[in-house]
């Protein structure tokens, strides 16, 4: 997750006014006794290295593979997801949305940036941006086309605006040609965007780059 984009030691960023402002704020809050700087390091490491869409991909792959789990996920997503070890902050009340040939779900937060952190990590910039937040509820098919997804006219588009503390995970349709695959193999077809609803799961021949078995 972003490990090869680490700008932390980029000397140019040392002079950035935002960098200085945040350092000043941290110093102030430590001096006031409100924060433990070591806790900040753990928070950053958690969301930069450990929590991310690979968690959600495990949930989806298991739902594809195991009908009993799929039923549980449909009935009580919070518990079904917690059974895999993913729970807590910004995922306290989970609901799974199952895409079908008849219905495609797309998740947005028009008011801010609500997003299921335990299964997807922190949201990408586009999800938090004005274009996505304004247009997803008004012209989702146009937005989907910009993501390279052209849905048939017969497929209903259900946009889900996360306005409360319920957090939504889209379960994309399982691609064809995956008979006999195990959960680990299936998980490689599940992208972050397919769990937001801005894309579909990958076809077997386009598995996520750099994540081949072995």
């Amino acid at each position, binding site marked *: 997750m972003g490990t090869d984009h680490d700008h932390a030691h980029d000397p140019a960023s040392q002079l950035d006014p935002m960098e200085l402002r945040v350092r000043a704020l941290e110093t*102030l809050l430590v001096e006031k006794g409100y924060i433990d700087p070591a806790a900040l390091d753990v928070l950053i490491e*958690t969301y930069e290295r450990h929590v991310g869409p690979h968690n959600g991909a495990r949930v989806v792959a298991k739902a594809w593979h195991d009908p009993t789990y799929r039923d549980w996920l449909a009935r009580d997503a919070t518990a079904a997801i917690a059974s895999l070890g993913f729970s807590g902050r910004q995922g306290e009340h989970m609901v799974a949305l199952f895409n079908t040939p008849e219905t495609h779900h797309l998740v947005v937060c028009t008011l801010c940036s609500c997003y299921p952190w335990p299964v997807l990590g922190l949201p990408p910039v586009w999800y938090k941006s004005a274009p*996505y937040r304004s247009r997803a509820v008004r012209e989702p098919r*146009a937005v989907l086309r910009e993501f390279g997804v052209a849905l048939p006219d017969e497929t209903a588009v259900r946009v889900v605006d996360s306005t409360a*503390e319920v957090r939504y995970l889209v379960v994309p349709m399982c691609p064809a040609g995956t008979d006999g695959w195990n959960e680990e193999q299936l998980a490689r077809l599940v992208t972050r965007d397919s769990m937001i609803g801005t894309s579909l799961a990958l076809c077997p021949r386009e598995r996520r780059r750099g994540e081949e078995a072995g």
Partner: protein
Amino acid sequence: MSTLTRSAHDMGGVAGRGAVGPEIDEPVFHAAWERRAMALTVAMGATGAWNIDASRAARESLPAAQYLASSYYAIWLAGLERLLVERGLATRDELAAGHALRAGKPVARVLRAESVAAALAAGSPTSRDARSQPRYAVGQRVRARTLRRRGHTRLPRYVQGRVGEIVALRGVHVYPDRHANGGPPFDEAPEWLYTVRFDGAALWGEDAETGLSVSVDAWEPYLEPEAAR
């Protein structure tokens, strides 16, 4: 428009915001300061000096031009600074100095490194025990109220005044419109929460895309029976 209280953050359906620009292989953070801004915000939230609804209210009440021109974590940072000052945890001169000029105010807890994992795993559930019957049932048609009051709300303007259908009951949850104000202690009096689905045509008229529906999660005080008007 249907309400007087929309601010810049309430973006659903607003025109002229341009194309969505996904970034290939996007990093979690785009600068070192974004990491610290995220962590500072989460750690200060853990002190119990405010809650998530107050945090949202602080970000939303930034001047519209600033909100629209700022990057995401810059908004978080400005919201955090505002809360620190509003809640008496720091002063503007201290923010400017980057040092404490006075002793800190007591806070309920300080998040320590060793308790981060447990705190994140626990989260802050907003559901509460139901002590009333829900007013609405699945299948019922309801109108989202038109809000004119000031202050924090989670009812987006694009559904206000529109009729939709209750498609799910989500239990009883802390009501953000009250929870955002004051405290600690916070007003956690909960309300029933529903998912309400609106046909695209009910929201956007003849402009609506084929087969579109949009749902929001709405607390009971946001809703009225379809006929009431």
